[in-house]
């Protein structure tokens, strides 16, 4: 769930340059580090989050929007995600749409907490179900697209297993 891929690349490159390179001894090893920096700079120019990664989240938001729309007595003032019929093509646009959708979902959760008295019980239950279904699908997708953690290695500074 790191935010910007561009900032992530920049941060890795800066860490290599500022924290790691000055502590490396030997031309070959230092050359390898510069090679890694060059590769990352090149990748940064061409790489973006994959459409598959983002579209699944947009599909989940769309399904949630449809569930919310089907709740007849949910007050019109309730925030909700708005998705276009056809998704845009660039990763940046898809990402923005995902972020806008999550903003709307968060606003809905806050609104629901502050307007309890205005929401009929059946609508509140249905909205709760729609919110929980979306959250579950989003988190499941995030976990499915994450690498196995390496915190023991990071803490100890050596290969484990």
């Amino acid at each position, binding site marked *: *769930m790191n935010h910007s891929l561009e900032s992530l690349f920049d941060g890795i490159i800066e860490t290599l340059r500022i924290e790691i390179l000055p502590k490396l001894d030997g031309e070959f090893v230092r050359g390898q580090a510069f090679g890694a920096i060059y590769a990352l700079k090149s990748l940064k120019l061409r790489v973006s989050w994959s459409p598959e990664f983002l579209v699944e989240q947009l599909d989940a938001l769309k399904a949630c929007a449809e569930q919310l729309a089907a709740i007849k007595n949910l007050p019109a003032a309730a925030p909700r995600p708005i998705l276009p019929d056809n998704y845009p093509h660039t990763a940046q646009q898809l990402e923005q749409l995902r972020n806008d959708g999550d903003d709307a979902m968060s606003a809905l959760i806050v609104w629901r907490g502050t307007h309890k008295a205005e929401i009929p019980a059946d609508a509140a239950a249905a909205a709760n179900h729609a919110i929980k279904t979306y959250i579950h699908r989003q988190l499941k997708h*995030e*976990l499915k697209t*994450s690498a196995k953690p390496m915190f023991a290695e990071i803490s100890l500074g050596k290969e484990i297993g």
Partner: protein
Amino acid sequence: MDQAADLPIALDNEDALSARLEAFLATQLGRPVKITALKRFAVGYSWITHGFRIAAPGIGGVIDLILRLGPSYGLFAPYSAAPEYLSLKAIENQNVPAPKAYFWSDDPAILGAPFSVTELVRGEAPIPWGEAGNMPDPLRDSLATQFTDALAALHNADWQISGLAALGAGVTNENVAGLQIKAWEHNYRRWTLRSYPMFEFGLQWLKEHEPVAQRVSIIHGDYRLGNFLAVGDKITAILDWELVHLGDPHEDLAWACLPQYRGGTNLMSRLITREDLYSRYMAKTGLTIDEKTMLFYEIFSLIKLAATHIAAVSVFERNHFHDMRMPAMGTQIAPVLRQMEKALEAVT
């Protein structure tokens, strides 16, 4: 202090840092001070920690010291050294093993950032991850007993007669949970670079289920395996006091019981069963552990943990904090939120 000393210094310039620290300590101790062996330690995720030595007689005979600096780009910036210093002073002689605290200041003109000076305590920090966390039963039992007793002693400490009383003005059994929710919601809003619906869902649930505390105590805030030093089977110091605050004792218990710190075992902080922890803790404190309050603080702990991971992403991407542990922590936001979702599944 001369004019040059009023200028900010780069925190990684150890020569300049030594000179400023010598000047500060000389003023405090009323005699010239010479610092040797200033060395940055590769520990912690937040404050910058240096070890250093001063010539005898040191400070009350202590010559090996720790300098902690809170950089403006750090994980929980902006920092204040006051809560940690005041808490360490409050628990002196209270059966909580901890470093002695000597000096602190939040004035960046002195060393370039808020800082504290404490005693250096010897020991190794067992960690909760991997094979390295395995230990023989007698050692684990001994550490578990001290771990529990130190927590109980911390929560029994009378902070109201210490310098912490000023920080505790207005904190009551009734509002302490709400104050903590407010503080971490504020942190989340200033750190996050995007919205996380599950985080909002968890926050909302907390606001609707605030418990009343049986007691307001000094809360360590990150009490677990990995945050204490031991020599052999003896805990020599509880470390990492940067999240210390006044709160409900259930908060530290819930944090120590997080699955993240069990190392894949059924032992809390990889040391002790939940039943043994609860029974020894209750006997030592006279408090009753309430399951509903524990659920509240379990969810609150996950909010804190997720917010901390969100902060890590923020300082790496926004503050140029060059530490690859930060984006690695960012990958843990989703697993923590999923854990929160599971914990709330049955009650929402």
